[in-house]
Every structure is written in structure tokens, then in C-alpha cells.
């Protein structure tokens, strides 16, 4: 859970998957309240059906928040330089998202940076979000699994 059990910053290194709890209606109600995103498509099945969806679906930003958790499990947040996600498919209610990350580049410059490819997939294999994080990884803080 911290730098002493962290990942090795080399190309190909994988962040251990983060399997989050299934997305329930309670999850979405809590996320709506805490985030301030009251879009009814996420919490009101009547509104979702009226708009042509079979049911409510999760906030995209909930998946991105899970990716934030995946990252800050392995390094202090102050090392995070950027986080980018493209939302590729809706996350249906009862989905079981799994977050993955893999180091795809190490760049030496003003500071040493790791580029981490990110994805969130649900149980049928659909990738709901994909993107990238850039993280400062000072050589002296390299830790071994």
C-alpha cells in the first residue's frame, strides 16, 4: 500500500489490478451525493427509461475515481502529473469494474516520468474507460516488488 511495497518503474511493469466492489444503486446514490453530479440518468430509473436507457448507469467519473485509487495505492499522489481517460462504454448497474495499469514508457527529462496505460473493464470484458497517467518516478524512490 505504499512505496516500500511499490512497483518497479520499468517499461512493462504492471500495477496489480484493482477489482472494486460491484456498482450498486447505493454506490451511485452515494457518488451522486458526494460528487454533486445529480444527473438523473445515474440514480432515477424512470428518467433513464424515459431517455431510452434500460436502467441507470454509472457516472463516468466514478470509473476515473477508481483509476485514481489504483494509482495512489502505489505512489504518493503528489507524484501524479496528469491523468486522462476516454469513456468508451457505459458502465451498467451491477457492473464489477476491474482497473488495470501498465508502464508503457519511462522518460528522462527535467524529472523522470513513467507513462502508465490505464483501463477499466467490466465482467463481460467490455472496456468502459481507457487512458493514461504520467507519474514522476525519481530513481532513488524505485522500489522492488
Amino acid at each position, binding site marked *: *500500500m505504499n512505496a516500500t511495497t511499490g512497483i518497479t518503474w520499468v517499461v512493462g511493469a504492471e500495477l496489480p489490478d484493482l477489482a*472494486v*466492489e460491484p456498482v450498486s444503486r447505493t*454506490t451511485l446514490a*452515494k*457518488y451522486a*451525493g*458526494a*460528487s*454533486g*453530479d445529480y*444527473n*438523473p*440518468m445515474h440514480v432515477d430509473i424512470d*428518467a*433513464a427509461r*424515459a*431517455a*431510452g*436507457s434500460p436502467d441507470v448507469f454509472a*457516472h*463516468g*467519473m*466514478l470509473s*476515473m*475515481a*477508481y483509476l*485514481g*485509487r489504483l*494509482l*495512489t*495505492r502505489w505512489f*504518493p*499522489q*503528489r507524484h*501524479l*502529473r*496528469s*491523468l*486522462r*481517460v*476516454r*469513456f468508451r462504454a*457505459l458502465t451498467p448497474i451491477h457492473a464489477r469494474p476491474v482497473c488495470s495499469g501498465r508502464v508503457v514508457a519511462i522518460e528522462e527529462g527535467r524529472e523522470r516520468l513513467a507513462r502508465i496505460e490505464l483501463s477499466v473493464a467490466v465482467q463481460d470484458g467490455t472496456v468502459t474507460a481507457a487512458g493514461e497517467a504520467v507519474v514522476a518516478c525519481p530513481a532513488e524512490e524505485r522500489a522492488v516488488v
Partner: protein
Amino acid sequence: MIDRALIGAALPAHDEIVDRSRLRRFAEAIGETDPVYVDVASARAAGHPDLPVPPTFLFCLEMDDPGAFAFQAELGIDTGRVRHGEQTFEYHAMAHAGDRLHIASLISDVYSREQRQLDFIVKSTRITRDDELIATMRNVIVILGEDR
């Protein structure tokens, strides 16, 4: 089609004070149990002055102003047709509970993919504390066509 004249339009800037109890509720909602994000003593032990703002929470502060979404209503965009296409954060400094953050957004791009009946609005946001840049955000909003 959304009028490209919208490009460059500034949305109402606003200040938000980061609230500890809201950060705790956000942590609970996303299943974050790392004590650094919920317990002030643990946050301080990790070198933070107070609970840190987690990586995606800045997006929530941006939405806290009613004006943040008023432009969608003004354009007659139905909430049921809006999807979040893409989100980017560039981080410059950490923010913490108790910080007063200034949030300034503008519409930085508008474009369409007519064959797919999609319109896109790109919103760019700067978040500052006093005059220090904390983060920038880029939000691609997708609007599904009515016949889709």
C-alpha cells in the same frame, strides 16, 4: 449542430472551499479506505497539512456552481442525451481540505461528427489557489443526436 460561436465563451468563475466531511463522503462513495484520505492525523503523518483532495475530486468542485451546467440548458441540450466523452487533469500542486480554490472555465472547442450524429463541446478549466496554479482540466462533453 452547436454554434461554433460558443468557442471562447467564459463560464462564470467561482470560488469553492474544500470541505473535509465532503472529502470523506467522496472517499466512501468511491471505496477509498486509505487513511490518508479520511483521517486528518494520517494525512498529517504523510506530510499533508490536511486531508488531500484526491485526483478526480477537482471535477466535482467545478460542478458546484449552478452556472457550470446552465449553458447546456441554455442551448436546449437534454440531460438524457449528454455523455462524458473524455476527461483530462494536469496537476501542478496538491490541494487540501480548507483550501479556497478559484475555478475558471471556458468553452475551448465545439465540433460535430455528423455521420455519427454526435456533437462535442470541450470545456477547459483552470483551478488556482491565490495565484498558484493547482490543476487544469479538459472535459469533452458528447451530445447524442435526437435521431440516434
